[in-house]
């Protein structure tokens, strides 16, 4: 039991170290590139690259990353509550904003989802046909 806890703490600590290192490097690279992408997204791409190149082992970050992803929704709560500061502006523009944001978003969601799924199914069926042809050729 004690051994398990010790390794869990180590895994969380090493994960935090790697993630914050990626974020810090991402911030630096972001500034160098004239803020083309924000630090966090730059850091995400750096982490993926480092894992791919085996500079970072998956075991070092997996546990911490899973927890971050699991609780990510919670992290949006305080920022969202910041809207109380803009409540007057918000109330003025609210009807137009709500209608636009809701409808445009839902339409977009369905268009992208349908488009990609259609493409995916088409290429899958092509592949199956292709492999069927290959089977026949054998």
């Amino acid at each position, binding site marked *: 039991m004690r051994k398990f806890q010790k390794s869990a703490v180590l895994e969380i600590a090493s994960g935090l170290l790697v993630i914050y290192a990626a974020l810090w490097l991402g911030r630096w690279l972001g500034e160098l590139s004239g803020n083309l992408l924000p630090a966090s*997204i730059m850091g995400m791409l750096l982490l993926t690259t480092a894992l791919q190149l085996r500079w970072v082992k998956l075991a070092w970050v997996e546990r911490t990353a899973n927890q971050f*992803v699991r609780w990510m929704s919670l992290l949006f709560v*305080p920022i969202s509550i910041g809207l109380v500061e803009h409540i007057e502006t918000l109330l003025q523009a609210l009807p137009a*904003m709500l209608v636009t944001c809701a409808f445009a978003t839902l339409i977009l969601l369905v268009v992208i989802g349908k488009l990609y799924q259609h493409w995916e199914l088409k290429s899958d069926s092509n592949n199956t046909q292709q492999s069927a042809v290959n089977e026949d050729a054998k």
Partner: protein
Amino acid sequence: MINFLYLPLTIALFIAAKHFQQRFSVTWLNPVLITLTILVIALLALDIPFADYNQYSGWLSKLLEPAVVALGVPLYKQLYEIKSELPRIAITILVAAAVAISSTVAMALMVGASPKIAASLAPKSVTTPIAVLISEQVAGEPALTAIAVLITGLVGAVVGIPVLKLCGVHSSKAQGIAMGTACHALGTARIAEEGHQHGAYGALALVLSATFSALLCPLIVPLFA
């Protein structure tokens, strides 16, 4: 001292809302929306300044950046599969970004919004830090943009998955890409709860749509002026 209590209160409310949602398995009862509604009403009713609330609760916002970095792990796990699909993912998202910007501006003008508000809404599907920069670039109002981004994310997080399923989109990859492109990090956070593959495609879509929108917004928005 009392300012400190808002932090555990926020976390406790969120966990309670999450249990509530799972107990009754109703997707639209989104924990973020429930927690947000209760706290906003409480702050307004008790006249508590946001600065007081945010003094300690703001620590949670500081964890958003590392959380986005952490999405690199699901992205890496799916990378092998994603590589072969990258061209069609990129084309889908490029088209989607153009549709997102033009449909939003057109719809906003149609319901009577001023050109400034319409321009502020244009980058609504992009993650906040980039959306605010784009908004300045197209002569919008960044504070309005931040709120529009939030509303968009909440709409996606609350009804996104049920709507996709209702319209027959069941593929986890298509769902991930749709949520990441249309509803940025909040949508990605929601869809990542469904599984690693959903999360990986969501994270990739988040990055690509932010980049494409930053390039396309200054080209498309002036067309409506």
